């Protein structure tokens, strides 16, 4: 997966009209609530086969920090 694909998937997952970049702060999005966190956890598990807790996800803010949590090696471009 590329970072751009992740941004597209996130936009759909969060059902937001806001255009996302790796600098976007997820916590500033109106749509980023506790249910979105649960959805995001399931998405990461299904897509990257990695399991995180809601508490771990609570520590991330930007899309880049989410990418860092998932691991840069999960993305096939730098």
């Amino acid at each position, binding site marked *: 997966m590329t970072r751009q694909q992740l941004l597209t998937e996130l936009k759909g997952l969060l059902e937001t009209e806001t255009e996302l970049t790796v600098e976007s702060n997820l916590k500033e999005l109106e749509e980023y609530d506790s249910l979105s966190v649960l959805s995001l956890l399931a998405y990461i598990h299904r897509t990257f086969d990695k399991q995180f*807790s809601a508490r771990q996800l609570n520590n991330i803010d930007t899309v880049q920090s989410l990418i860092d949590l998932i691991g840069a090696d999960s993305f096939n471009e730098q």
Partner: protein
Amino acid sequence: MSNRWTNLLQNKTIIVTGASSGIGRECAIQCSKQGANLILVGRNPEKLRVTLEHLDAGKHNIVTCDLSEPEQIAAINDELIRYGPVQGLVHCAGRQKALPLKAFDMNEFDNLFRINVSSGIELTRIVSSPKAFDKDGGSIIFISSISAVKTEKGKLEYSATKAALNSAVKTIALELAAKSIRVNAISPAMVKTPMLDSLFSELPKDAAEKINERHLLGIIDPIEIADLSVFLLSDLSKKITGSNFIIDSGYSLT
């Protein structure tokens, strides 16, 4: 006059699933204190042996089985017949899951349904056969959840499985009444178990605190579920069937 509240399960053989930890382990322990012989069912033999070490003396046995696999349930049939006839079953095995509608996945739901609903029904089908169950009847208990009647955002799949289980309890109670087998559900809110510890470690701190606050009388101890299970397994409750007993520490009032 003898005390009707001692040795409530003397000489009864009781199957407990999910007996390797949490509610299942505590149910097994309290049943043994009331004189029951236990058949402990679970996936992990080492953990089942730990439960076994906590039991009062009796003719106890361990049966290793992954209840999400129908073939494995069928395979334990002979063992249950050998250790029986049984007078009771407490089905505690199950799995928690937090997932909202937009993350719903049919295959994952089917898997959860199998673990939380189908496996218990299939086990009941096998256990309630004349070969395995006492001809004078007995009692079957499904450990359900308050989520079946008081749901929350993000509990779609879990709540749906537990509501299905409660509905199944009524039908099974109707069908097994002719065999004098009583069937009931116990629906707890949050219980102090390894499953809860794991859930709390995953939740944001404020969410965990909110859950605590909504248990007006405190988070439930497994022994409080076990005590009700003992009563429902005993002859003291011999006219109670098809019911759902809520132990929620006031959670559903909030």
